Every structure is written in C-alpha cells, then in structure tokens.
C-alpha cells in the first residue's frame, strides 16, 4: 500500500532547521509492500518536527514486547517470595540453628533497617529516580540527633533537627534533579560524597555516640513492644503506611504516573518537578528513621557507612523485588520480597561462616543478575527516558 512520508530529515532540532529552510511542500511517497497499515509496520517513516521525537512505530513495537514480558512475569515479587521460601526451607534442613525463633528475629531485625531504606529507595525509583545518597542522609541525620542529645537538647528537638538535615539533603537533590535536570545517579552520588565530608568535619570524628541516658532514643533500636523488637515494628509500620500511600492516594498514584511517563503525567495536570523534589525529601526523611533505628541498636553511628556497600544492598532489595529502575513499576510487596530474600541469603551465609569477601561476591552477582533481568523485562523506552522537559 502507499502511504505518505513527510520530510526525509530525521527529527531533532537540526532536522527542524533543515526542514524550515526548505521551500514549498516536502511530501514524498513511500511504497510499502504488504504493509497492513497499522502500528507495527516497521517501514513507516516518521519525521517532521523539531522536538527530537522518535519513531512512533518502533516505540509501539518495543512497548508490545515489553508488555509480553510483563505478562510472563506479572508478579516478580511472588517469584522472589517463592525463591526466598525455598532457600529458607533448604537452610532449615541444612543449617542447625537457622529455623529457630531467635534466629528468625535476628533475621527480621537485620533486614529492618535495610527494609526502611528500601522503602525510601522504592518511592524514588517508582517515580523514575534514584537516590544513592540515602545512606548519607541516614548517617548524617542520625549523627545530628545523637550529637544534639549529647549537647543536652531534648529528644524531640534533636529529632526535628536531624529531620531538617536529612530533608535538606533531599531538597537539594530533588531541586537539582527536577530543575537543573542533572541525572539522579550523578546528583545523589556527588551529594553522598559532599555529605560525608561535611559530616566528618562537623562531628570531628567518624564515630558518633548517643549519651548513655538517651533512653527514648535507645528504645528505638533495642527496645521491644509486646516481645517484638522495635526495628521490626518500625519497618512494619512504615511498610504499611507506604503501601497505603502508594496504592491509595492521589500523590501515590501520580508517583507511578510520573515514573511511567513524565510527559503524560505533566499533561494530565501533575506538577512533575515539585513532586520529584517532594519524593527525594520523603526518601531522606525515611532514611533518617532507618538511621535512628540503626544507631540506636548499636548505640553508635559510624559515618564510614556512607562510603560503604550498604547502598548496594538497598538497590539490590529494590530491583530484586521488581521495582524496575525504569520507573513506574513495583510496590511495597516488592520491597518485602527483596528484603526477605536478601535477609535469608545473608543470614544463611553468616551461619555457614562464609566470610565477608565471599558474601560480597554473592551479593554482587545477585545484584548483577537482578539488574540484567530488570533490563530484559523492562527495556528503557528512549522516547520517554527524559525526566525533565
């Protein structure tokens, strides 16, 4: 069949300029044998416009293959839950001391901090962002709280100050990403280093301790409520809250919309830039809570963790559970699944007396595998890969 093709110059500003200089009509006809005249005809030539748009047909083709992948792995988190369960059963038979109440509590407690951080990361990633400075805001925020308590300030006041520090980091991150449109990866990576330096300067040492009489603070990480360790309770409460936020509220749904297609979100009335900033601030606020629990449990905060491997675990949990790095996908269930699998894996490896290097190798391999899987299942659509305009 015969269909018109416009231009002949590929999109982009350059194309627009060239086309603008052309006098008169610029139609030509392309003969496409046997084309059904529908979307997936690969021969359609789509050009005209100076906005750098891509070929609609290619997009639709990719979209369809992505959709097919989605159907096949509709519940990645369920698959991860199953793997975690299988691994747990295996460990229970293999490893003495794994399947005990005590060890289960240890396992849950150990993933609680990671879990809270992963909730924060999920919030940002679903909105097509990434926050590598979560550990920085966590450590700097918690250190602020402890230092102020040490200086005699009341606990609530100290917490507010720590929250202000963390949220300020999130605000700057979000502003740079939303308005200057620097990729989140670089922004938050640089922010992490900046915070590390400033924090070491401000606290004079890499180790910050709470005062011994900070009972309320120490309860957060060491206390129990109805026999359940507080870290687990904090994680559970935040997970439920985040789930309700993401799945039921308008800002929550807009987070998915923004991550799925920022342009479309903007046109349906979403203030994309403002929401980006808010999401980074919320994530930083959550990371402070993770930091409080962690610092309280060990009665210290080592600022060195900012440059450590913890952020890899956070990315691992999120991606493994099915929060795609492309954005717009995943849920709190994903975080729970990812955290559970990592918890079981690390706990088992520790009982097996596998050393740190080997654990790092295992985590690194699993992370690589998870990212490859994510990339296969959710190929990034170049057309909508921009976060700003």
């Amino acid at each position, binding site marked *: 069949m015969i269909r*018109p093709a*416009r231009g002949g110059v590929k999109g982009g*500003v350059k194309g*627009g*300029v*060239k*086309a*603008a*200089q*052309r006098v*008169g*009509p*610029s*139609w030509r006809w392309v003969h496409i044998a046997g084309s*059904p*005249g*529908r*979307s997936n005809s690969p021969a*359609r030539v789509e*050009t*005209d*416009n*100076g*906005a750098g*748009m*891509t070929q*609609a*047909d290619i*997009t*639709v083709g990719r*979209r*369809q293959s*992505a*959709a097919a992948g*989605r*159907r096949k792995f509709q519940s990645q988190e369920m698959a991860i839950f199953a793997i975690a369960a299988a691994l747990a059963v295996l460990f229970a038979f293999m490893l003495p001391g794994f399947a005990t109440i005590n060890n289960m509590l240890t396992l849950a407690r150990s993933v609680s901090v990671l879990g809270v951080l992963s909730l924060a990361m999920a919030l940002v990633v679903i909105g097509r962002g990434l926050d590598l400075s979560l550990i920085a805001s966590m450590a700097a925020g918690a250190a602020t709280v402890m230092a102020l308590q040490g200086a005699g300030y009341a606990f609530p006041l100290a917490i507010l100050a720590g929250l202000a520090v963390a949220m300020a980091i999130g605000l700057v991150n979000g502003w740079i990403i939303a308005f200057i449109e620097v990729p989140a990866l670089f922004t938050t990576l640089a922010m992490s280093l900046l915070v590390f330096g400033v924090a070491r300067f401000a606290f004079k040492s890499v180790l910050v301790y709470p005062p011994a009489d900070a009972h309320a603070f120490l309860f957060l990480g060491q206390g129990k409520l109805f026999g359940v360790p507080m870290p687990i309770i904090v994680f559970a409460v935040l997970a439920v809250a985040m789930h*309700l*936020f993401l799945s*039921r*509220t*308008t*800002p929550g*749904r*807009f987070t*998915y*919309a923004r991550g*799925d*297609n920022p*342009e*479309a*979100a*903007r*046109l*349906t*009335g*979403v*203030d*994309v830039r403002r929401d980006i900033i808010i999401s980074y601030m919320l994530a930083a606020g959550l990371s402070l809570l993770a930091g409080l629990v962690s610092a309280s449990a060990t009665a210290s905060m080592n600022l060195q963790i900012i440059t450590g491997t913890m952020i890899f675990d956070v990315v691992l949990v999120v991606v493994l559970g099915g929060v795609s790095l492309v954005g*717009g996908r995943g849920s709190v269930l994903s975080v729970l699944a990812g955290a559970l699998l990592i918890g079981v894996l690390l706990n088992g490896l520790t009982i097996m007396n596998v050393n740190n290097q080997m654990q790092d190798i295992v985590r690194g391999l699993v992370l690589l595998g998870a990212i490859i899987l994510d990339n296969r299942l959710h190929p990034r*659509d170049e057309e909508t890969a921009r976060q700003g305009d």
Partner: protein
Amino acid sequence: MLKVEQLGIRFGGVVALDGVSFSVAEGEIYALIGPNGAGKTTLFNCVSGLYVPTGGSVFLDGADISSLKPFERARRGMTRTFQNLQIFEHMTVVENVMAGARIHEKGGILAHMLGLRSVKAQNAATRRQALAHLDQVGIADLADQMAGAQSYGVVKRLEIARALATQPRVLMLDEPVAGCNATETAEVDAVIRDVARMGVTVVLVEHDMHMVMGLADRVHVLNQGRTLAVGTPEEIRRNAAVIEAYLGVTEAADA
C-alpha cells in the same frame, strides 16, 4: 475560548514562528496545516506551554496563560496529545483515563490511605466516568487490559480519552490519525466531532488533508513560521498562495 496573539519563537538564529495569531471559538474544530517545518508542532508546543515563546501571548477564556506551566494549563482546562503516543504503559487502559481525572479529586491523603467511604465512592465515580470516556472513543471493552499491550489505533484513542478525563475546554491534538489506517482514521474523526459537539474547542495538527478538509470548521495554513492563510476548508482549497505552497503540489504528487 482560545486566543493566540503574535506568537513568535526563535531557536538560535532560526525564526521558527513569527507573529502567528489566531482565535478559536467554543466547540470549533480548528486545524493547523502546513508543509514540513512550517512550525505547526512548534506552535503547538508554545500554546500548550512546553516551549516558552520569545514573543506573544496565549489567552484561555480571556485570561492570559502565557506564563503558566503545562500542568497548570491542564488544570485550567487545556490539554493535548502527542504525535508520538504518551500513555502510561504499566497501567490498565481505564487507569490511564482515571489518572486524567485525578486532578479533580478531593480528599486528604489520610482519608485516602484509610479508605474512607467518601473516598471509595469517589474512586468508583472516577472509574465510571473513565469508562464513559472510553465508551465515547469506542474502546470500553479493553478497559482492564494493560495499556502497553494495545494496538496503535487503540492507544491513539486512549490518549484522547485520557485528555477528555481532565475535563478540558481546549483539546489540542497533535496528528491524531498519523499512522492510522482508513478505518481507524474514520473512528478518530467521529470521536473528534463528538468531542466538539460537547462544546470542547479542538485544535489539531494533521497531515491527512482528506480528513482535515472534511472535519475542520476553519483551517490555518502555516508556512515557514508565518501565517499563509486562514479560512474555511472551501476557502483554503481555492486560495492561490496555499495551492502554490502546499496543496497543489501534493495533489500533483497524489495523481
């Protein structure tokens, strides 16, 4: 309803738009046509707020909206579609449309999180309304399928349905039938007429001359960033300058 005055924009040294003015009445279908690079999409982007024009003003319902951002214009009743489809792929078809309606929803975050009865009622109403919009564009039967898995023609209409859900007073369609076959074109044509009958002002860029001439109340011809002619399809067809610059040669090529 929509008034554009002396709009101009330059990219570096290139004047992409030069003093373009027009106004569109309520419920009118206004088509922008012109050869490649004439500035149609640029004009669209300026009017919808994606580009900041270097000169001129845009008025919606008498109010100057020149300095408003795209999402603010959407909330005021101006929305658009893109020629390269912009949908939420990971949502179902009906969720896409519901997303368009959410800017009009009420209730605090806590009320939503707790799932209060009023919120549930509102969600149900939003869904009903979204289904009605889907029905209007003829794809209600696909409501609960994934949007990313739909065919080109369906996605085209889905975009229009989502735009309608924002309750626009001005709907801007960028090449609504590009890549559609004859059947799909006829379907989209019917949808646009229907929308205009509801009193929505429709501005569209389209290359399908047959469709434009049959559909538009008035046609605005751009050439090299300037207005070449404005008139009814009949007037445009007879306009010597237009024939010379655009239509005539196309028809010659067609023959």
